[in-house]
């Protein structure tokens, strides 16, 4: 088994002088600072010789005191070993430029685009440096830089001026005030790039092709995003995705809150996964603080996160069924009934049904109430029975099977290349599960199977979700049997001030790999919080997946991903 130390010594011998400072902390994470001109070579070496084939994301950090930007690339492996490599590249603040990894990893594209539009770090050789989350008028102000003075006040309607834009439509323009110009919140020079509309129209080649818009507001999309399909007859030739309609700047908000105040904000990333988001954030801050939750607290977290997984999969599957044909297959409300029971179980511990804010640094908020075990076992019995019923129902339905089989097939190598994780990856015959790969909490003591399917189509994805519900029931039953008594909260000082440093912690969200990258400078507020969400990767993988399919299958493919726009836009 490859360990982080092996990888580090191999790197040091292969690239003498390119690795500036390196450490292994904790045991499976390798932190290294790489010389900027060597980063592509190092990543290529790691990918080809050490099986680092999973590009997990990138985070940009503004170190204004040192006059530097840092880009941290997260690399991992799809099951060959458990090492996570976090490679840092430094670049000066006045002319920031880093080499792009898009040539090595296809899915580096969006992560680098996001860093470019937010921090203004140029990525050399990046094929399409266009804004992703920000609207066009905010590009060029670089809002995540530490010296940015706040968003301009675009809400004052009195200042709005009507004008005709280049396409002949009337639009409102709000000229900036003098105070805003002085504060530097108005972009001085905007980068030049073609707009989404121009990029789409460039692709239209013949008379028979047209653009079909799906969204931003559409009955079958899980939140606002724009899916533009370039269609030739019934076939989709190319798909364009535009996200950022509900960009909330959660990562920037968390930089302006203390560590504890960040916990309720993480709920709002995606309300279906509130508990796992809490867990990922609290876990990374616990790593910074160097503490661990007591055993009972870890069991409580596991029970609730698995319950949360059940309710998310139930709703995800139910919602998907309404998408593909609400009149014919509609056990959606059946699933809502089951989900309500599961939510009641969670609520009896956390005190809320959706936004739990439950996990704390080094513990949990409440202990399990009396009678929780009996209630949960009852609910689990029912959920298990109903899930078997659904499986039988889907299996026996010939219309459903015809609609789903062989639709949106992701081959294992393709799924790995696109960087998806969670059920879509496991449906493509890749047993990649953070509970096994990067065991957090006490999952290594639990007995469970990682559900996989060979087919990789939409049907397999739904089957994986339904099977995972049953598997989660099994994990919860084990936890309820084994849970010890004891304290639920580690003693902590009132003001939490971690030592300067970084930490990365990832958990298995209901949808895949959810990681939080937190940077501390010793004060009571984080310097940078980066949320690496699973749905971001799904969305990025959607356009190549939709190419060549029929229009009627678009919803069946996009819906089977169980997406959540709120987490993509953050």
């Amino acid at each position, binding site marked *: 088994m490859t360990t982080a130390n092996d990888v580090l010594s191999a790197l040091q011998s292969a690239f003498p002088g390119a690795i500036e400072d390196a450490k292994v902390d904790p045991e499976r994470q390798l932190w290294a600072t790489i010389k900027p001109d060597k980063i592509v070579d190092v990543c290529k070496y790691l990918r080809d010789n050490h099986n680092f084939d999973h590009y997990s994301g990138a985070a940009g950090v503004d170190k204004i005191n040192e006059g530097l930007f840092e880009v941290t690339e997260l690399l991992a492996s799809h099951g060959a070993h458990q090492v996570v490599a976090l490679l840092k590249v430094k670049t000066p603040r006045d002319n920031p430029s880093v080499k792009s990894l898009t040539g090595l990893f296809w899915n580096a594209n969006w992560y680098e685009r996001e860093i470019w539009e937010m921090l203004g770090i140029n990525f050399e050789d990046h094929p399409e440096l266009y804004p992703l989350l920000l609207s066009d008028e905010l590009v060029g102000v670089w809002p995540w830089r530490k010296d940015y003075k706040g968003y301009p006040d675009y809400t004052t309607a009195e200042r709005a001026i009507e004008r005709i834009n280049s396409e002949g439509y009337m639009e409102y323009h709000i000229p900036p005030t003098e105070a805003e110009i002085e504060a530097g919140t108005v972009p001085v020079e905007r980068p030049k790039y073609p707009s989404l509309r121009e990029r789409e129209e460039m692709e239209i080649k013949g008379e028979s092709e047209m653009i079909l818009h799906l969204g931003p507001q559409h009955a079958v999309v899980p939140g606002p995003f724009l899916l533009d399909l370039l269609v030739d007859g019934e076939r989709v030739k190319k798909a364009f995705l535009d996200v950022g309609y509900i960009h909330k700047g959660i990562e920037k908000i968390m930089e302006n809150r203390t560590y504890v105040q960040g916990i309720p904000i993480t709920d709002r990333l995606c309300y279906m996964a509130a508990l796992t988001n809490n867990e990922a954030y609290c876990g990374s801050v616990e790593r910074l603080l160097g503490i661990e939750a007591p055993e009972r607290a870890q069991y409580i977290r596991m029970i609730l996160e698995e319950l949360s997984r059940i309710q998310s999969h139930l709703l995800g599957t139910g919602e998907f069924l309404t998408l593909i044909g609400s009149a014919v297959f509609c056990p959606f409300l059946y699933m809502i009934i089951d989900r309500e029971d599961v939510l009641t179980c969670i609520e009896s511990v956390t005190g809320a049904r959706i936004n739990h804010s439950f996990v704390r640094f080094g513990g949990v908020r409440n202990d399990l109430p009396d009678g929780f075990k009996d209630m949960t076992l009852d609910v689990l019995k029912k959920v298990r029975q109903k899930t078997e019923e659904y499986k039988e*129902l889907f299996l026996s339905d010939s219309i459903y099977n015809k609609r789903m089989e062989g639709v949106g097939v992701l081959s294992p190598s393709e799924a790995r290349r696109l960087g998806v994780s969670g059920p879509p990856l496991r449906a493509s015959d890749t047993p990649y599960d953070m509970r096994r790969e990067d065991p957090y909490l006490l999952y290594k003591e639990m007995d469970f199977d990682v559900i996989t399917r060979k087919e990789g189509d939409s049907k397999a994805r739904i089957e994986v979700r339904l099977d995972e519900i049953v598997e989660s029931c099994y994990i919860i039953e084990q936890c309820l049997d084994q849970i010890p008594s004891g304290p639920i909260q580690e003693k902590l000082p009132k003001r939490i001030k971690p030592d300067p440093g970084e930490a990365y912690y990832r958990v298995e969200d209901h949808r895949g790999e959810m990681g939080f990258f937190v940077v501390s400078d010793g004060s009571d507020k984080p310097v940078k919080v980066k949320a690496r969400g699973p749905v971001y990767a799904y969305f990025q993988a959607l356009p190549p997946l939709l190419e060549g399919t029929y229009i009627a299958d678009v919803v069946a493919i996009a819906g089977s991903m169980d997406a959540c726009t709120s987490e993509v836009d953050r």
Partner: protein
Amino acid sequence: MVLKNLKMTLKRSVSGVEVTRLYPEKTMDLPDVERGVHVLDIRKCIGCGACARICPNDCIELVPYKRGNPLKNKKQKYPQIDYGRCMFCGLCVDDCPADCLTMSKVFEIAGWERDDLVYSPEKIAVGKYTDQELAELAEEARKAAEEKKRKAAEAAKAKKAKAAKAKAAEEGEKGSGEKAAKKKAE
């Protein structure tokens, strides 16, 4: 196939699971840990402002409240909560050092105006003092203040006397020292 599915539907419809809740007439059972509208134990509150400092949305403001305990401090302030901004995360409850702020099961707080959602201490307080108790407490506070004043005056007097004595002693010593010096010189 169709029959099987129909059977499931029929079974579901007669299985007796109560799905629809008769909401305004009958609310569902809420657990004890439910995070609803706050309850402030006015007798325990020490007005430290920890809740206002931890609030991520800055919705708690400390305001003066005339029915507070006059024994402690007449200028003590109590939390006022703006539910238009509150996200019911419960951090204020966790952080309260006197355990006086808790959350209740009340969740129906809709109002006609924005100001209806701003709950003053009067609205969230329990264990409020009656007029008689307040009068007694005020009397006690007045007495305590008087006592304090008297003690302070006494202490000041004693201090003054001590200071005078010390001065006198010092002067005396100085004087004797001078005399001694004179003697020596002679």
